[in-house]
């Protein structure tokens, strides 16, 4: 158990995930605050994505639990919630390393799908939607307004009616983040959002992450290999290696941690030299 400061959003307690003989996550404890960016780094196979899968209900952890401190709904144990309730009720949304948009829907539709809650309540088994009743129309307009706001903020507004699958990689990444934001998450879990982005796009991503955490008080949990993003935006970094947490601290502390240098950064430096 770790002590939980006042603004802790997500609390991970002794999380262990075993697949047969393989221990992918070993006794991980972590507190993720609201309004801050928490990065999870580590070499391939360190258990980062497994951790995300435990958060969003894909995997049921072997030991331990993940608790969300929801301002309205109180304490929610994420690993006991159905996947759709993790997003809808607990306010935790994730993106994927390999982008998972709905490719044959337009960008706008992708963002509207994410606003299930309000619309579904207003549509009354779709009858209100078909008949165009005022309650549904209002909910629909609000959903459109929210989608439009995020599209504008992310510079996607001129792509709103294009099928998402036809857009470039970097654009699709931004749509995926915009779509996640339409769920109104308290905690946004991003799995390698900078992968495949060019330097300009990844600078924009840095700015966006800081904006979301500072201005919108979102908790952000970030898995990332791109150190220029991680070191620039993180408030705290947790380093995993073979499922163990080997270090945790500010970017400055992590850069000077001998364990981390040995396990992770050291390897990358030699790679860079040889390249």
């Amino acid at each position: 158990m770790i002590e939980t400061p006042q603004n802790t959003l997500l609390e991970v307690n002794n999380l262990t995930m075993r697949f047969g003989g393989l221990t992918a996550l070993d006794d991980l404890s972590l507190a993720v605050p609201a309004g801050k960016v928490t990065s999870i780094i580590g070499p391939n196979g360190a258990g980062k994505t497994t951790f995300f899968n435990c958060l969003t209900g894909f995997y049921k952890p072997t030991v331990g639990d993940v608790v969300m401190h929801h301002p309205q709904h109180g304490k929610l144990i994420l690993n006991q919630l159905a996947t759709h309730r993790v997003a809808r009720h607990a306010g935790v949304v994730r993106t994927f390393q390999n982008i998972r948009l709905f490719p044959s829907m337009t960008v706008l539709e992708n963002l509207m799908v994410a606003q299930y809650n309000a619309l579904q309540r207003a549509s009354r088994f779709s009858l209100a939607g078909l008949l165009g009743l005022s309650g549904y129309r209002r909910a629909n307009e609000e959903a459109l307004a929210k989608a439009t706001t995020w599209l504008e903020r992310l510079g996607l507004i001129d792509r709103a009616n294009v099928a998402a699958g036809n857009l470039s990689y970097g654009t699709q990444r931004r749509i995926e983040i915009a779509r996640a934001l339409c769920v109104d998450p308290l905690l946004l879990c991003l799995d390698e959002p900078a992968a495949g982005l060019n330097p300009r796009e990844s600078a924009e991503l840095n700015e966006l992450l800081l904006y979301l955490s500072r201005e919108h008080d979102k908790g952000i949990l970030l898995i990332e290999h791109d150190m220029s993003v991680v070191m620039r935006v993180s408030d705290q970094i947790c380093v995993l290696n073979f499922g163990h947490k080997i270090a945790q601290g500010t970017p400055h502390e992590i850069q000077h941690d001998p364990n981390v240098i040995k396990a992770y950064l050291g390897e990358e430096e030699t790679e860079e030299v040889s390249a």
Partner: protein
Amino acid sequence: MGQFIQQLINGLTLGAVYGLIALGYTMVYGIIGMINFAHGDIYMVSAIISVTALTLMSALGISAVPLVLALVLIIAIAFTSVYGWAVERTAYRPLRNASRLAPLISAIGMSIFLQNMVQVTQGARVKPVPTLMPGGIELFTHAGFSVHLAYTQIMICVVTVVLMVAFTGLITRTSFGRQQRACEQDRTMASLLGIDVDKTISYTFMLGAALAAVAGVMVTVYYGVVDFSIGFVAGIKAFTAAVLGGVGSLPGAMLGGVLIGLIESYWSAYLSPEYKDVATFVILILVLMFRPSGLLGRPEVEKV
């Protein structure tokens, strides 16, 4: 010429019915990737329910045709949707994560179960229904052949067109339609965005059953005879229609239905009525061999 036009009318009517059933196949395939072989029997259940409802109406002395028709449709849709829901809940949902073959076998089992249940509870005899909408319009007479458009045929075509428009609106414009399409494209992602996938699948089954229910009512009123085994052949023909149009494509299902209906009625008129089923199934085989993705379907791309 007269014969040709007459068969066009007959074929379109028949095709509308196949199309309505085919939509159920295609929607269910789209969302969970399985062929619901019990769907034809859902349609049969609806036909039986409408026979019961019609008998009830005449016993109660309700005789205004539009009222009777509306009531029968509502009753059939209500009960049949519950059947659709129950079939999914009991036979398919427990197998959601099993191998692809398991729900298919379960579907065939469900089909046999429904047929036998109706046979046992309703008897095996053919059930006749009094003609609800007799008569029609004599369009013209050409070379001694009079072309006839029955009121039931007009009703079937009008109801089908109205349903298609409403249904297209539902899928393309409402939030349910968006969820439904989202679940079709990526179920996992949809649930991560807060969509209740199980519920969406249930609604899809209910919607497919409701469309089959309308087809069941139409056929009962059109032919006036129903028994427990009509679901099998109608189901396989509608399945052929869905495959011909491209499984997973909604306009494809309707187009396939109309084409199958036309082929069947022209084949019966000009070649041989005994072999009309053979014609349909030859088409099924040819489509599967030469164009497995159907007329309007997209070839399935293996996800990596």
